């Protein structure tokens, strides 16, 4: 039985709360990944970042990722949170926390969680930089520069 929590929020991400959420007396190993907005991407100075979300599907997709994690590894708890709206540079936009009895599982599950989240959860990032804006995605041809 894996404990889980999935959230989309327009507030700052509280990593301490996330860590205590996955805390458990049987958990020997906790891993946390935090993705932070950077001031630079592909040589452009990013001034502002905004995330758009398809919220109902994003939450369902996170839950599917959590269920897949629970199937593949012996984890105790999974928490995922993604911030949306304007995220100031240097602040966390996404975090995944995992607790498990052992670190092997905790690392593998956390890595799978963030990789899959970034590949499948319907959240889009728009970068605003000097002289333009740009929807970020694997296919950069889709970006629009103004």
């Amino acid at each position: 039985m894996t404990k889980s929590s999935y959230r989309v929020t327009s507030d700052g991400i509280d990593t301490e709360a996330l860590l205590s959420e996955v805390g458990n007396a049987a958990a020997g190993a906790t891993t946390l990944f935090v993705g932070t907005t950077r001031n630079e991407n592909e040589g452009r100075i990013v001034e502002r970042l905004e995330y758009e979300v398809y919220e109902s599907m994003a939450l369902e997709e996170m839950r599917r990722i959590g269920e897949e994690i629970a199937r593949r590894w012996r984890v105790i708890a999974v928490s995922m949170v993604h911030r949306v709206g304007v995220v100031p540079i240097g602040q966390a936009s996404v975090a995944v926390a995992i607790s498990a009895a052992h670190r092997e599982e905790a690392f593998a599950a956390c890595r799978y969680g963030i990789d899959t989240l970034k590949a499948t959860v319907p959240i889009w990032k728009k970068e605003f930089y000097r002289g333009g804006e740009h929807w970020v995605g694997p296919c950069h041809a889709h970006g629009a520069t103004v």
Partner: protein
Amino acid sequence: MRIRVLFFAYLRERCGVREADVELPEGASVDELWSRLVTRFPALPAAPPRFAVNRVYVDKGHPLHDNDEFALIPPVSGGTQ
């Protein structure tokens, strides 16, 4: 049947809509809906994005049902590197 179509991110901006309703004959598939959308929204790219029906990714052969929630999912970029 009526399908509710959702647009996000750059597709929302290019098409200038957040959502649209599309009438389709019973038994139509995602593929047929996409053809209909390309005609109605010429700003849509030639290469289709990913599709979701009722918040689950589907492929283009997926059959649609009345009141389905259909979403065009441009390349996602949750979080940062």
